[in-house]
């Protein structure tokens, strides 16, 4: 008994595999329930319309046109060649039997009959071929599109990783160096020196933490729009929290905040959006070289909320404006402020904002730089 059961199971499995392996050409010529039903439905409909028309006006030429339209539609809604060809034959039969004199009798001897038949058959085959070709084409295009997107995402991730491992090494070197120096030469170092070494270790570790938090946020995005875990949040609370966190981390940072009187509730991942704001503020803090406070603002513009950070410093070099969110910006720059590696921070901002369905923009104004981003009101 069990043996039999196993055999049946094996058979079913083999059959399923066969079906899966059916080639392109088999698919073109198979008969399925769906095709049959669709074809029958369209033909019935056309026949009914033609019948009404025939009773009202008794013309035959236009009835052929009705069936021609049906022949164009059938391949559109079915797969393969079979439905079109069958429909063509049925159509010719119907016209012959129902709508040409003598009514309700077959008459294959009429002189125009073979021409009508051949024409309809040709229409059916041509339309079937064109339709299935188009369908195939769009399928291939969609697949290519998807592949391209995957490649793009992959490229972004690779860039990110490269930039990150480059950037992690600097503070790690500092930490390892300072701690081993302390352990090995601790005896002959002054108290003051020891203290400053431990302070440096702390600074570097804090910076590493910042980086790791950025990376963690990226893992919260699973690559597409649906990947962010959004809840309704009060936008001003997110702004306020980001500002106080940034201040806690960089006591020297000076920020002026402006929010609208109206409370804006937006669907968002508050941790991620907070991270974006912190990155933008720290970016301004480290790179603007300004001692004036920066502006952090929030306002509503139609169906979007606009967040932004405006600083009053040296501005963004025009050559970098286009690539500033790409994560590669810091690669070639080679100057001293590349240590703070904000290239990554900004590319993460872009990833986060894009995943929320928003846009991020950077530009220079008269007295410095401004980076703003939008979020849909949901």
């Amino acid at each position, binding site marked *: 008994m069990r043996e039999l059961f196993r055999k049946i199971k094996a058979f079913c499995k083999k059959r399923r595999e066969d079906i899966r392996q059916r080639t392109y050409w088999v698919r073109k010529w198979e008969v399925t329930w769906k095709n049959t039903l669709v074809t029958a439905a369209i033909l019935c409909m056309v026949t009914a319309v033609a019948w009404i028309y025939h009773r009202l006006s008794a013309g035959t030429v236009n009835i052929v046109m009705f069936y021609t339209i049906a022949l164009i539609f059938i391949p559109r809604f079915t797969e393969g060649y079979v439905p079109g060809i069958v429909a063509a034959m049925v159509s010719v039969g119907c016209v012959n039997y129902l709508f040409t004199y003598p009514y309700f009798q077959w008459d294959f001897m009429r002189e125009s009959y073979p021409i009508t038949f051949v024409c309809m058959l040709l229409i059916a085959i041509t339309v079937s071929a064109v339709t299935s070709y188009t369908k195939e084409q769009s399928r291939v295009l969609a697949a290519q599109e998807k592949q391209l997107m995957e490649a793009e995402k992959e490229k972004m991730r690779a860039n990110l990783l490269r930039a990150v491992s480059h950037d992690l090494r600097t503070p790690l070197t500092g930490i390892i160096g300072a701690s081993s120096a302390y352990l090995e030469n601790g005896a002959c170092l002054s108290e003051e020196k020891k203290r400053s070494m431990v302070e440096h270790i702390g600074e570097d570790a804090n910076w590493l933490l910042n980086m790791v938090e950025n990376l*963690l946020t990226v893992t919260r995005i699973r690559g597409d729009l649906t990947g962010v875990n959004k*809840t309704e949040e*009060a936008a*001003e609370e997110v702004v*306020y*929290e980001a500002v*106080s966190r940034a201040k806690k981390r960089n006591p020297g940072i000076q*920020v002026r*905040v402006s929010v609208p009187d109206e409370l804006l509730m937006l669907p968002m991942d*508050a941790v991620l959006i907070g991270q974006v704001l912190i990155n933008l503020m720290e970016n301004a803090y480290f790179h603007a070289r300004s001692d004036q406070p920066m502006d952090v603002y929030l306002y509503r513009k139609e169906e979007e909320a606009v967040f932004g950070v405006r600083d009053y410093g040296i501005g963004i070099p025009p050559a970098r404006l286009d690539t500033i969110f790409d994560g590669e910006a810091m690669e070639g720059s080679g100057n001293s402020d590349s240590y703070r590696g904000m290239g990554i921070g900004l590319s993460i901002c872009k990833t986060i904002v894009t995943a929320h369905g928003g846009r991020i923009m950077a530009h220079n104004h008269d007295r410095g730089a401004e980076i703003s981003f939008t979020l849909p009101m949901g």
Partner: protein
Amino acid sequence: MGKGRERNRPPAACGQNRKTERDFFVNGTILVIEDEENIRDFIATSLRAQEYKAVDAKSAKEGIALASSLCPDLILLDLGLPDMDGMEVIRSVRAWSALPIVVISARTQEKEKVTALDLGADDYITKPFGISELMARVRTALRHGVHVAGAGLSAEVFRVGGLSLDFGKRLLKVDGAEIHLTQVEYKIVAFLARNAGRVMTYDAIISHVWGPYMDDNNRILRVNMANIRRKLEKNPAEPRYIYTEVGVGYRMAEEE
């Protein structure tokens, strides 16, 4: 060894005895449940430096056993333990005791924080944290533990910084100026003030102010909080009285 004898020793003879001396003058016993040795070590060291008696446990099971045998004044609990979910520890301790529990959690898991608070944890601290932050949380939690034991807050007036809230007269003043609050706003502020120093989750506030049958749409709470903020805080980016814990709830500042 009786503690009385310990006390009678002359302090001058310290040196060796210093540790036992400290054991006696402890501010309280704190149980640290954390599997990571480095973290456990630095927490315990800094607690001892602040005259607390620190006991550590490497796993949830050990922690639960120590909690019931030692009856500590406070538990510091890491949620990511190897043998059991930290939530289970909260549940099992809450089954028999109201002793304060402060949860140590990673920043990105705000859902976990809310669950822990709703299960009965008193507060949380986010990894990584500095010593001063940890000590502040420990002090607050210990103070509330005492309050619970003393049953009911008797204070008629809550004061922090320039803010004073008279529960009897329902009167709120900031820097001497009277602030007019709506009924709901007053209820929220009063609730936060009675639990000053502790983060109150959205759900806790909603069910206190609007009752347990309010749906969990917390938009109305946010709107009220926005109004309160506009009335109380001069510069909400540097809040003096009510702190926002995004994704979790709100916290009223506490007098130090």
